[in-house]
């Protein structure tokens, strides 16, 4: 039997190559009809975000919004922070020291302060399924679409602290979005390292 297996397997390899070529052609052709086609050469998340920031920075400012939209609602009382033991946990992560990491107790404390601004850097679909109450959706992969929507709300906070989170400690979206915001002139970005995973593990309130 083994003598007959090799020609059969060789034919299967040819079949695999043919199927692979047809699949690649199909994939490239269907890409042309996507609303946001994938470019043929890969660009990293950071470089895509940099390009988006450059386009956002170059775009004209929108018309002045009504004044009340610039003020964010304070977070609900149920978000009162857990007592924090010891000193603050802020760790500077950028040379300019305007992007720094915070852990859950400190995050809760800052979130409870009046006028706290919170940004959700996860993909929009995750934000829709559930997010930390009061968070604005600013997905890393759609920064260019969502930043102009929140521009009027965010710009008054250029010199105040903005809290940013993503899925958890292994995701990089919160750091990337925080870094993008610094390029747009925001000066204090606190990245909540534990993110959505740490928040939900504690059974803290969610908003949909």
């Amino acid at each position, binding site marked *: *039997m083994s003598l*007959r297996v090799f020609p059969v397997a060789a034919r299967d390899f040819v079949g695999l190559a043919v199927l692979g070529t047809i699949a*690649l052609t199909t*994939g*490239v052709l269907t*890409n042309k009809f996507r609303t946001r086609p994938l470019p043929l*050469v890969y660009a990293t*998340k950071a470089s895509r975000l940099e390009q988006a920031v450059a386009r956002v920075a170059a775009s004209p400012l929108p018309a002045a919004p009504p004044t009340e939209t610039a003020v964010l609602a304070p977070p609900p009382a149920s978000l009162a922070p857990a007592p924090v033991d010891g000193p603050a946990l802020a760790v500077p992560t950028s040379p300019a020291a305007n992007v720094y990491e915070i852990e859950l107790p400190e995050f809760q404390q800052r979130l409870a302060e009046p006028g706290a601004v919170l940004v959700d850097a996860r993909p929009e679909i995750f934000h829709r399924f559930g997010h930390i109450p009061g968070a604005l959706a600013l997905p890393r992969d759609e920064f260019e679409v969502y930043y102009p929507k929140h521009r009027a709300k965010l710009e008054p906070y250029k010199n105040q602290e903005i809290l940013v989170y993503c899925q958890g400690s*292994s*995701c990089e979206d919160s750091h990337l979005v925080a870094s993008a915001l610094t390029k747009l002139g925001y000066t204090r970005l606190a990245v909540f390292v534990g993110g959505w995973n740490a928040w939900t593990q504690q059974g803290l309130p969610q908003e949909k």
Partner: protein
Amino acid sequence: MSAILRKRWLFLILRAALGAVFIWAGVLKFQAPQAFADSIATFRLLPAQLINLLALGLPPFEIAIGLLCVFGFPRRLGTFCALVLCAVFASALASAFLRGIEVDCGCFGSGGSSFSKMWLSLGRALGLGAVATVLYRFELRSTAENT
């Protein structure tokens, strides 16, 4: 005779299940090619010129493999391709372990990168590969008996 028939039914069910898994994985990736390209990039195995091509080509390939497994025509091709693909996935994950880098498998949509998830993905690739191997051997034997 009934034992052989039972065995045939078992193989048919296994092949359909394997096909369903591949179709599901392919559809999830097809819906979010950029996220899949980002997952491929975390492996640091391919140059930038090939990452997006793979992200565009692999999902239709997986869907096609799944359909071939479900319908069983052309004979053996679906299980053979599934076997090769599982071997490639497992090798890529093993190489990431050896290099000590955390990767996002991206096998069933983007799920973040962590070593615990990588172990799960490696186990899944090996398990599916084992199923594909058993099915392919069975189909090879059937081919040999019929010729």
